[in-house]
């Protein structure tokens, strides 16, 4: 066999088809864990054979067929094992009706898979890896690479997540309307976490295939296509686009963090910004405002300012006030204080931060110190600013963040 490489188009095609193929195979054979393995093998077979033989006319059917064959092999050996053990006969071929090779339900399959992978029985870290693998079609090695753990460790994590699905007994079907709404919340949360993970890791120009931010955007687009009327789905997609638009500007030449107010705005991705702004504007006009939409609206206001001094802080402050009402997240209070400081001055911001001193979730968190330092600096109280920058640098568990905060303290101290 001549080893070859898939071109980008075929690679994207494979990843788009992966959840559809998995959906079809799970529907036929019920066993999610085994089906997932079979589909991975089919994807590997495709990446070896397509560069040599060309992409088949019906790639989806090709993949389903290869995966189903693997499934049958597996079931035959399982049956043989059980026959040996229990002497009970089992007719493999009559297990289930044949997988519909070109059904019209492929999109539904992707959603059902997403709902399965983001099942409330799974912890968020498990849901994340399973979604990337089953719905995103990433290999174990790619996911391991993205999370900086050895491949064998990631393989175990994936396998445990699959076992949890199996143990939860979740059937492979679309949940009813009420449950669907609740499950969509978990799906969006998982996609949001994947995006954050990826957004943090995407430093520099060499974006990899396993780039999680891109993957989250791709998945959010797919969900948005399936639920075009859901405002929070649209809000999350807009939030991702508007945040990701600043990706190139937020890291300097030496890999250091560049905060929003110091970024070179010409590096921002205008296309992503206009898409995100259009999406969030349409969505907000439809009513039923949720937290992803509000965060997207805030990101849009930042993105629309050509210069940092053009930022509409009044609007940002108002949006954070709304967000505070619907979400009990201390980070929102923190950001609201910053916006209030930009509108009414640092004293107002510092006053608002006092509410967080009693919040156990913020106790000892470096961000509270970092924001205080920033506001003290705005107020011209450099000694307090230095002390809080240093406290924040001491507390963060993140090297670029520590370096940034240490530099701020050193700058004021010199």
């Amino acid at each position, binding site marked *: 066999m001549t080893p070859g490489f898939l071109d980008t188009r075929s690679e994207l095609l494979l990843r788009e088809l992966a959840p559809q193929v998995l959906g079809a195979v799970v529907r036929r054979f019920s066993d999610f864990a085994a089906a997932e393995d079979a589909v991975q093998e089919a994807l590997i077979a495709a990446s070896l054979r397509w560069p040599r033989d060309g992409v088949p006319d019906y790639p989806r059917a090709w993949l389903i067929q290869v995966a189903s064959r693997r499934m049958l092999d597996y079931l035959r050996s399982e049956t043989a094992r059980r026959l040996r053990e229990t002497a009970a006969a089992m007719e493999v071929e009559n297990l289930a009706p044949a997988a519909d090779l070109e059904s019209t339900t492929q999109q539904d399959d992707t959603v059902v898979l997403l709902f399965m992978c983001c099942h409330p029985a799974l*912890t968020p870290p498990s849901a994340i890896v399973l979604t990337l693998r089953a719905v995103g079609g990433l290999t174990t090695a790619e996911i391991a690479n993205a999370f900086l*753990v*050895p491949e064998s*460790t990631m393989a175990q994590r994936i396998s*445990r997540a699959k076992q949890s699905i199996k143990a939860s007994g979740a059937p492979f079907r679309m949940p009813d309307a009420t449950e669907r709404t609740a499950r969509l919340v978990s799906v969006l949360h998982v996609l949001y976490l994947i995006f954050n993970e990826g*957004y943090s890791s995407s430093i520099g120009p060499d974006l990899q295939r396993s780039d999680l931010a891109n993957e989250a955007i791709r998945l959010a687009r797919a969900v948005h296509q399936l639920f075009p009327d859901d405002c929070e789905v649209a809000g999350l997609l807009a939030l991702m686009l508007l*945040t990701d638009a600043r990706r190139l500007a937020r*890291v300097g030449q030496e890999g250091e963090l560049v905060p929003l107010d110091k970024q070179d705005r010409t590096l921002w991705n205008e296309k992503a910004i206009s898409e995100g702004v259009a999406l969030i504007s349409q969505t907000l006009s439809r009513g039923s405002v949720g937290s992803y939409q509000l965060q997207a609206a805030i990101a849009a206001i930042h993105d629309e300012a050509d210069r940092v001094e053009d930022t509409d802080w009044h609007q940002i402050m108002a949006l954070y006030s709304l967000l505070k009402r619907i979400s009990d997240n201390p980070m929102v209070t923190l950001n609201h204080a910053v916006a209030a400081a930009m509108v009414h001055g640092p004293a107002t911001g510092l006053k608002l931060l006092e509410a967080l001193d009693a919040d156990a979730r913020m106790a000892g968190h470096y961000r509270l110190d970092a924001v205080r330092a920033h506001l003290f600096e705005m107020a011209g109280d450099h000694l307090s600013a230095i002390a809080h920058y240093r406290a924040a640098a001491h507390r963060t568990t*993140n090297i670029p963040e520590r370096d940034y905060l240490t530099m701020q303290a050193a700058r004021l101290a010199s």
Partner: protein
Amino acid sequence: MKYILMMNTPERGPYSIFNWPKRDFEAHIAYWNSLNKELERLGELVAVEGLTSPDQAKLIRAGKDGTPVTDGVFPESKEFLAGYWIVDVESPERAYEIAARASAAPGPGGTALNMAIEVRQVMARRPDETP
């Protein structure tokens, strides 16, 4: 979140497994193997390494011209690292739990060694910016 669990040599003298009776040594090694396998199976193990005995250790400093200046070997007991795990876990409590398991490794006569395990969070190399 990642943590490094550093196992320091027992307070009195070097980590003297070499003089243990066969059965105790085997039980000790079996304990490590089963702990490591379990951490791998749980998808938490990032790395585990054992280090050569502390009496082989040397301290290196750069001399005036940048060439290494060696201090040691240290035959007497100083507190040295015997080995370490790097684990990727969901909470600090879980890291402490693993450290306690490591600490309780059996020594001579099967008694738990209760070695001190230093637990430190590994800093992330990536910026952590929530939108």
